[in-house]
């Protein structure tokens, strides 16, 4: 082995170890905040989720999407925000959703979004999308409802895959005629902007948009 090879592998090894250590620390923080929220009795729920994330770190995007979507659609029951959180439009963190075992569409979308990010997914490929959902199909006569899903764009200009709790499996957008997108968020514009906790003009929480406030809260609980 030449010195150069040795050098390169050492650099790579160092980078890998740093990354693992960082993830471990981040997970520890999350776990601690979970225990703080729900107590140590149900921590196995968290550990299961954590185990899932750990297995997804080194897989491809489609596997990640499917596993994460399935995990939450199976483990978490649907309920309205007002019933779970006594708030009409509460945005729970993944830890809160896991502990409760219940979520509305926003809770599902946020938990999935974060799990994917933790599994190593590039934020540029993910969007949180407000949609108008016509339950029972596009031609149904029931009144539409406001809904939120996660959209995955394998390429910037490609058709997205939709992670939703109304229909349990991941489908391309074209196969979801019941959903009509209204507006999408990405993390990028926000993180570069107002919410940068380390150097940005953080002055007063009341000035954050809901989205920004949520990102802050998630960061505090260890999600990033």
């Amino acid at each position: 082995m030449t010195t150069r090879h040795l050098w390169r592998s050492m650099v790579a090894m160092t980078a890998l170890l740093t990354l693992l250590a960082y993830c471990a620390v981040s997970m520890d923080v999350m776990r601690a905040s979970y225990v703080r929220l729900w107590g140590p009795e149900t921590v196995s729920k968290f550990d299961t989720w954590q185990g899932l994330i750990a297995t997804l770190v080194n897989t491809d995007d489609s596997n990640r999407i499917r596993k994460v979507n399935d995990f939450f659609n199976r483990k978490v029951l649907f309920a309205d925000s007002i019933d779970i959180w006594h708030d009409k439009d509460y945005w729970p963190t993944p830890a809160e959703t896991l502990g409760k075992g219940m979520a509305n569409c926003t809770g599902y979308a946020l938990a999935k979004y974060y799990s994917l990010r933790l599994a190593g997914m590039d934020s540029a490929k993910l969007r949180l999308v407000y949609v108008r959902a016509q339950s029972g199909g596009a031609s149904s006569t029931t009144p539409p409802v406001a809904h939120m899903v996660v959209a995955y764009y394998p390429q910037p200009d490609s058709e997205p895959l939709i992670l939703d709790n109304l229909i349990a499996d991941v489908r391309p957008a074209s196969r979801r005629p019941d959903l009509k997108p209204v507006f999408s968020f990405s993390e990028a514009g926000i993180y570069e902007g107002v919410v940068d906790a380390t150097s940005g003009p953080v002055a007063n929480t009341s000035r954050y948009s809901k989205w920004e406030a949520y990102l802050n809260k998630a960061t505090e609980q260890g999600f990033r």
Partner: protein
Amino acid sequence: MSMYRQLWLAIITSMLLALAGSMVASMLSARSYLQSQLSVKNTDNAATLALLLSQGNPDAVTTELVVASLFDRGHYELIRVTDPKGQVMVERLSDETELGAPAWFVHALPIRATPGAAQISNGWKQFGTVTLVSHSSYAYGALWESAYKMVLALTAAGLVGGFLGSLVLRRLKRPLDAVIDQAKAISQRRFITIEEPRVPELRQLAVAMNTTVVRLKSMFDEEAERLESVRRQANCDTLTGLANRSFFMAHLRETVAAEDSTGGTIFIARLANLATVNQTLGRDATDEFLRAYAQVLSDTASRYPDALAARLNGADFALLVPDLAAPQEAAEGLLEALTQVASHFLPDQPSTWLGCGHFPRGVETSTILAQVDVALAAVQAEGRNGLRLINLRQDDDTPRSAHEWSALIQRALDERWVRLVSFPVTTLSGTLIHRECPLRLMFDPEGEWQPAGRFLPAAERLRLTPQLDLAAVALGLDELASHPALTGLAINLSASSLELPEFRTELAKLLKDRPERYRLWLEVAESGVQSHFAAFRALCLELRDVGCKLGVEHFGRQFSEIGRFHDLGLDYLKVDASFIRGLDSNPGNQAFLKGLASIARGIGLQVIAEGVTSSAELQTLSTLGFDGATGPAVQEPV
């Protein structure tokens, strides 16, 4: 740096720091506020624009139009839409360069708002990303304006603060200056007390110094009182309080011989038949009679400057008046006053025989006394109240008219027929202290140099002494300038000159800028000091910082007034020759002068004896604590 200046500097510095600090803090907080406001505006407007475009099935043209409308209508620096791959679709960039504030200000306080970004989508498809930057000129304008107002407000606050600070300092400075002045005064041997300041620290200092000064003064006064009685015992007749014989004789000798002597008139009044009077009246009444008789003489003496009344022995009284213009009239007046007093005690009896001698400078005292004795004997022979005057003045002493004197003196001054003569004043071990330099004038080119006694009385009457004194000081300064090794030079000033403020101003002007002034000694005779005390005091205060030395000559006869000197800052005393003559055999005067020397040295005065005529006197002086001596017995230093 003075304490006052340091306080000022501290106030100014702390005020500037406080003002600058609050300026910086408020600017930074204003900037951070504006920055976050701009950032929020950027984010919100980007989200609104993205939402607007997302709702309307966007295409390139619509996007272009919407972006243009927003850009043209609003205040933006940049609105850009990029497609999902990062290619720019639409971009509007403001070309406005106006920043709303000077470039240096923008450079110093840059406002860095984060650009707003939001996603535009067309159905499920990503359409693009909008990036939006609001124009910051308004923010800079607002920041600049607030900085401007802030500077104005802070300047006003600073001025007010400075004004208040200076008031406080002035309040502090006045007592501080008073304390400093007192300290300075004490170091200049002027023992003054001051009003106690209100500032506690300074008050303690002032109280301490005042107490010291008061204690010093009272010690001084007690000692002076004690010495005054010693002086009286040694030099005065116990019954009448007039000078005694030995003092009178010493004074007479001095009056005749001194450089500034003007000659004078001696009156000797003899009480007729004192022995019989004693028998008729009894002892107590006789004593009363003698006191009343003496009172007439001392009253008469007090009417003439430098006159001295004395009781020579039981029945003989004497009066010595220097420079008396009309001796005959004076003698008649005196005789009348004496006989009038005597008539109360001895009606219808002759009481007084008066012999008078009018003599110039330089006549032997024995000659004068012998002549007056002859006159007395002649009067006595007549057996009734009477007087006889002997005139010992030469013909060339005939009095000149005021006009003539004035012309003579003026001419001497104009022609510069003036010079100083000089006599050594040495320490008792013989080192030169200074040279005493009286002025002499010449009245015609071939004439002889006239001593002060010849022209001074006329000059006093004609108010010409200021010119003479200034001429003498000028000569003295020149003399000092041409003899850099000369330790000092003393000039006498007339007390009558001091009365004129213009003279004091002229004198100060003459001394100013002359480096020789530090070696110049100025002295005024005791009689002049006491009769022109206010003027003398003014001179002392005016010359306090000039640097020349100030003293009193012919000191001693009014010793009891020494207390008045304690706040003048004098440098030396020259003790009158009357106290020095025969000192070696006069234990009373020895005691007096010993005390005088110790008290004077106690307040920092040098003490010099005048008119020392014998080495025995010189030797005695050294045991009395004198610093120096002058007179015929003082050797010219080698």
